């Protein structure tokens, strides 16, 4: 999964996660071009409470607006999003 060249992906945080992380969107240059690589990079950037929120119950991860499970590979320009539990209406 790892690559020698780095990959830049956009990472977005919504709702309570946006507040916990203190950021809306960040462009991350990741070494390991996958979700685990994003998490590893975030671990070196975020405060502990922000990082913990991303692993909270019901948090879902999207790649290019599609919810994914587990780890998936990423390409340059992909958009990764962390979504807390939703509620409309």
């Amino acid at each position, binding site marked *: 999964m790892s690559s020698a060249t780095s990959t830049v992906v956009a990472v*977005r945080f*919504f*709702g*309570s996660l*946006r*507040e916990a992380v203190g950021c809306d969107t960040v462009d991350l240059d990741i070494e390991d071009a996958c979700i685990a690589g994003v998490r590893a990079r975030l671990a070196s950037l975020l405060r502990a409470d922000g990082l913990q929120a991303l692993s909270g119950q*019901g948090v879902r991860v*999207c790649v290019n*607006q599609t919810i994914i499970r587990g780890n998936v590979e990423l390409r340059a320009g992909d958009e990764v*999003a962390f*979504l*807390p*539990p*939703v*509620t*409309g*209406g």
Partner: protein
Amino acid sequence: MHADIRVETDDFDVAEEWAAMRARLGGRAGAVVAFAGIVRDHAGTDKVDGLFLEHYPGMTEASIGKILAKASDRWELTDAVVIHRVGELGPRDQIVLVLVAAPHRGDAFAACEFIMDHLKTDAVFWKKEHRPGGDIWIGATGGDRERRNGW
């Protein structure tokens, strides 16, 4: 089926949406059902001063589209419109409109309620309530999930 999905910060005008739908209806539609959600000034015993609604442009509209597709598979519908507001809303503000037309009233009622119940649980929105004690992010309630799972 004509379908229309909008996520906007501006208020919507039920009269305008209703008239536009009626103008699209042929002689086949016998029933129109509209649901409007309005911001209440309390939640349980707590006062609520307002809401903040957030969405994920693109994904939110797609999540509503999936709900409409499910409803349209299940009931015979001629028209469906969903308008959902985002941003800051105060008590008594309109927050969501679901408008459905169908040949028969049973289908129109069921589809409108189905869409609304699924908007609460499956549509991609995040809601924060402004309460006197501070802001609270709201998740779908157990009751919301029960209503959705009842379909």
